[in-house]
C-alpha cells in the first residue's frame, strides 16, 4: 500500500544503492516493484546465464550500469576450458538494439570479442566506463575501437586480462578532443605502446586520477607523466628500472615529491631495488601498496620501504618478505585492513618464505585486519587460534598452504581446530578458503558457526559426505560453494536439492558424485542448470550412471539451459 505518490517513493529509492537492498525493495509489493524497476540504474548479474539480455532490458529500461560475471571462479586456475562460455556478444547485441543508454560495463571472466567491443563503442553515445577483469578473447584492436569512438570515456580499466597485443596504435586512437579520462589502466597489456601518444593523452586529461602503466613504459616516460599529472591519486608504474645515479632518476625523485595526492601505488613489473628510495616521500600517505609483481624486491629494501608506510590500509606483497618482514609490517602498519601475500614461486615447486609465524605477528600488530589472502609454507592450529583471538573482524579469510594436505606443522594434527576458531570468532565472516589437512570436523564447525558465510572454497579436504552436509545444512547464507578433490558424493549432493535454488552456483570437481546423481538432481530441480564438463579426451564418456563426474557446475537460472554450450559441456 502506498501512502505516498510515486515520485516520493522514487526519491526515497534514490538513496538506496546497494543491490541487495534494491532487490528487497522490489519484493515488497507490485507498485514498489514497478517504481523500483523504472528507477534502477545499476544492475549486477553474478552469473550471466541466470538471466537473459532480453529480460534484463524488459525489466530495467533505465539501465545505465551493468556488471556481468561469466565463468566460475575456478576458471582462474585453469580448471575450466577456455571455450566453456561466458560470451559478451549476445548482451551487447541485445543492448545495442534496445533503447538502453548504457554508460558503464563491468565484466569479470567473460569472453569478449573485438566485434563486441566495436559494437559497444558505436552503440552508446554516453558510454563512460569499461572495466574488464580476467577476460579474454579480444585484442588491442577492440581497445582501439573503444578509444576512438567513446567520446566521453572516463574509465578504461583492464585488469589481468589475456589480451592479444597488436602493438601500440590503440593509444593514438583517443581523439584530440578526448579530455574526459579519469582512469586508465593498461598494466596487463604486454606490447609496446606509443609513448608520445601516452604523454599527450595525459597532458590533455586534467581529470586523470588513476593511471596504471604497463611494462613497456620506461622510467623516463613515467617521470615526464608525473610532472604533467601531479594530481594523480592511483599510480601503477611500468618498468621501474634505471640507473639511480642518472639525471632521469633525479627528475623522478622531484616529480614524486610534487605528487602529494598519490594514495595508491602498484606496478613495479620490473624493478631495480636501488631506485625505491624515490618513492619514500609518497609512502607516508599511501593507503594501498601493491608489490606483488615485484620479485626483485626483498630483504632490506622491502622493509625499509614499508617502514615509511604508516597509513597503509591494504598491502599486496610477495612471500619473499618473509616472516620477519611481516613483523615489520605488523609494527608499522597499524591501520592495515587487507593483506595479501602471494607466492613468489607460483609453480609451487619451491618453498614459500612465510609461515604461521608471520601471520601471528600480523594479527598481533594489525588488529583492524578484516581481509586476508595468505600463501604459506605451513600453518598450525595454535597460530590460527591466536589469529582468531587477535582479529575477530575478518570478512574474508583465505589461507593457502602450498602443500594442500599438510597437517599442523608442530602437532601433525588436522587443522580443524584452527579453522574452527576462525569461524567461531569471526562472526562477520563472508568468504572462506581452506587448505591443509582437514577432516569432516572442520565442516561441522563451519556449519555451526559461519552464519554469515557466503562463499566457501574447499580443496582436498573432508572424509565423507557428512562434511558437505554440515555446510549445506548449516550455512544459511551460502551463495557460492566450490569444491575440488574431496570425497563428497551423491548422498551429500542430493540430500537437500532445494538448497541450490538459494545459491548462485555449486562447483564440484574430482569428487565422488556420479552421472546418475547429477541426472537425478537435474530431474528434480528444473530451475537449475546442471552442467557436466568433460574436457578430457575420455572417449569412454559413456552413459553409465555409475561413472564419476570429473567436473560438475550447477547454477540456478530463470531462463533454462543455455544454447551456447560447446560440445564438451553436457547440460542434463
Amino acid at each position: 500500500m502506498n501512502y505516498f505518490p510515486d515520485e516520493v517513493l522514487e526519491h526515497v529509492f534514490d538513496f538506496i544503492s546497494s543491490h541487495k537492498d534494491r532487490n528487497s525493495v522490489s519484493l515488497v509489493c507490485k507498485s514498489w516493484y514497478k517504481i523500483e524497476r523504472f528507477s534502477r540504474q545499476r544492475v549486477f548479474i553474478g552469473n550471466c546465464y541466470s538471466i537473459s539480455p532480453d529480460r534484463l532490458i524488459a525489466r530495467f529500461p533505465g539501465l545505465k550500469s551493468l556488471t556481468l560475471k561469466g565463468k566460475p571462479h575456478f576458471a582462474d586456475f585453469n580448471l575450466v576450458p577456455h571455450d566453456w562460455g561466458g560470451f559478451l556478444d549476445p548482451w551487447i547485441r541485445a543492448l545495442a538494439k534496445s533503447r538502453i543508454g548504457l554508460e558503464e560495463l563491468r565484466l569479470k571472466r567473460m569472453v569478449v570479442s573485438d566485434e563486441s567491443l566495436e559494437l559497444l563503442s558505436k552503440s552508446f553515445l554516453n558510454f563512460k566506463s569499461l572495466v574488464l577483469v580476467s577476460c579474454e578473447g579480444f585484442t588491442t584492436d577492440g581497445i582501439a575501437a573503444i578509444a576512438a569512438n567513446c567520446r566521453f570515456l572516463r574509465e578504461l580499466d583492464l585488469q589481468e586480462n589475456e589480451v592479444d597485443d597488436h602493438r601500440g596504435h590503440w593509444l593514438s586512437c583517443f581523439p584530440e578532443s578526448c579530455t574526459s579520462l579519469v582512469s586508465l589502466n593498461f598494466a596487463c597489456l604486454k606490447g609496446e605502446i606509443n609513448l608520445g601518444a601516452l604523454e599527450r593523452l595525459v597532458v590533455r586529461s586534467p581529470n586523470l586520477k588513476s593511471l596504471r602503466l604497463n611494462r613497456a613504459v620506461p622510467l623516463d616516460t613515467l617521470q615526464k607523466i608525473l610532472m604533467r599529472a601531479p594530481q594523480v591519486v592511483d599510480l601503477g608504474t611500468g618498468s621501474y628500472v634505471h640507473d639511480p645515479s642518472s639525471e632521469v632518476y633525479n627528475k623522478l625523485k622531484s616529480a614524486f615529491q610534487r605528487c602529494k595526492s598519490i594514495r595508491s601505488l602498484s606496478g613495479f613489473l620490473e624493478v631495480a631495488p636501488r631506485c625505491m628510495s624515490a618513492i619514500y616521500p609518497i609512502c607516508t600517505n599511501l593507503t594501498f601498496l601493491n608489490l606483488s609483481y615485484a620479485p626483485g624486491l626483498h630483504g632490506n629494501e622491502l622493509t625499509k620501504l614499508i617502514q615509511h608506510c604508516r597509513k597503509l590500509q591494504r598491502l599486496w606483497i610477495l612471500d619473499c618478505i618473509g616472516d620477519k618482514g611481516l613483523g615489520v609490517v605488523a609494527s608499522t602498519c597499524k591501520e592495515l585492513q587487507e593483506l595479501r601475500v602471494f607466492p613468489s614461486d607460483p609453480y609451487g615447486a619451491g618453498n614459500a618464505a612465510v609461515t604461521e609465524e608471520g601471520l601471528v605477528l600480523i594479527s598481533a600488530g594489525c588488529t583492524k585486519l578484516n581481509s586476508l589472502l595468505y600463501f604459506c609454507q605451513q600453518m598450525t592450529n595454535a597460530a590460527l587460534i591466536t589469529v582468531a583471538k587477535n582479529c575477530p573482524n575478518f570478512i574474508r579469510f583465505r589461507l593457502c598452504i602450498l602443500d594442500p594436505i599438510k597437517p599442523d606443522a608442530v602437532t601433525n594434527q588436522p587443522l580443524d581446530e584452527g579453522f574452527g576458531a576462525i569461524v567461531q570468532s569471526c562472526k562477520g565472516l563472508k568468504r572462506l578458503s581452506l587448505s591443509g589437512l582437514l577432516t569432516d570436523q572442520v565442516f561441522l564447525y563451519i556449519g555451526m558457526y559461519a552464519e554469515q558465510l557466503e562463499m566457501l572454497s574447499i580443496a582436498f579436504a573432508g572424509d565423507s559426505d557428512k562434511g558437505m552436509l554440515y555446510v549445506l545444512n548449516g550455512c544459511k547464507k551460502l551463495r557460492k560453494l566450490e569444491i575440488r578433490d574431496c570425497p563428497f558424493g551423491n548422498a551429500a549432493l542430493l540430500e537437500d536439492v532445494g538448497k541450490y535454488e538459494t545459491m548462485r552456483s555449486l562447483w564440484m570437481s574430482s569428487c565422488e558424485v556420479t552421472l546418475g546423481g547429477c541426472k537425478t538432481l537435474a530431474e528434480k530441480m528444473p530451475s537449475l542448470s546442471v552442467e557436466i564438463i568433460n574436457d578430457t579426451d575420455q572417449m569412454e564418456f559413456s552413459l553409465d550412471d555409475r561413472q564419476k563426474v570429473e567436473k560438475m557446475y550447477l547454477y540456478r537460472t530463470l531462463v533454462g539451459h543455455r544454447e551456447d554450450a560447446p560440445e564438451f559441456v553436457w547440460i542434463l
Partner: protein
Amino acid sequence: MSLEEAPGSLESDVTSMRFEDTELTLGLPGEGRSPAVIAGVKCSAKRGFVETVDLKLGSCSRAPSGGGDTHVNEAGAGKPPPAKAQVIGWPPVRSSRKKAINESCKYVKVAVDGAPYLRKVNLGVYSNYHDLMKDLENLFTCCIIREYQLISLSLICIHLNRKADREESKVMDAVKGMEYVPTYEDKDGDWMLVGDVPWKMFIESCKRIRLMKSSEAAVLAPKASLKCSGTC
C-alpha cells in the same frame, strides 16, 4: 610405487604423464594425491619439491577416509588413464600472475673461470651493462680472482651504450689486455661477447654468463664479430 618412477615423466610434457604417476608424487601413506602438477612447466623444480615433500610427510598419516584418497586410486585403477593428467590448478594463483612473475624474474647463472662456485643474478634489476658488471665484480671479490682486476670489466662497459651501434673495434680494444672477458650464452646456444647488443635485447636472449679468461676469449672474439655482423 616409488618416487623415482615419477620424475622422468614429469620432465616431459603433460600428455605423456600417466595418471598413476600423479598418484605417487606426494608420497602420503598409501594414497598419493598429487595436486601440484602443472602442465609442462618448470619440471625440474617440481621434482625437487616433490622429493622434499615425500621426505617430510612420509610419516604423517592421513585420517582414515571413506572416499577421498581412494578416489584417486580407484580412478587410476579402474579406468583407462585420461590423455592429460588433470591435476592442475594448485596453488590457486591466476595464470596471468604466474606469467608476470616469471617474466620479471630473469635469474641467470654466472660463472667465472677459476672460481670454485657459480652465482646467480637477476638481470631484471639492472638497467644497463655497467650496473651489471659492477655487481658481478662484487659477487666474485670473495674469491682469489680479485687479483685479476675484475674492475676492468666495468671499464669495458663504460664504452658500451645500449643505444648506439657498436663498432667492433671499440669493443675489441677494450677487451684487449683484460684478464677476463664477459661472455654470455644466448638463446641459440652460442657464446657471445657481452655488450654488442642493446641492453634490453641482451636480457631477453641471455641464458647464462661466463667471465672467460682472455686467453680463451681471443679465440672467441673473431667468431663473435662474425656472429654480430651476421645478425646485426
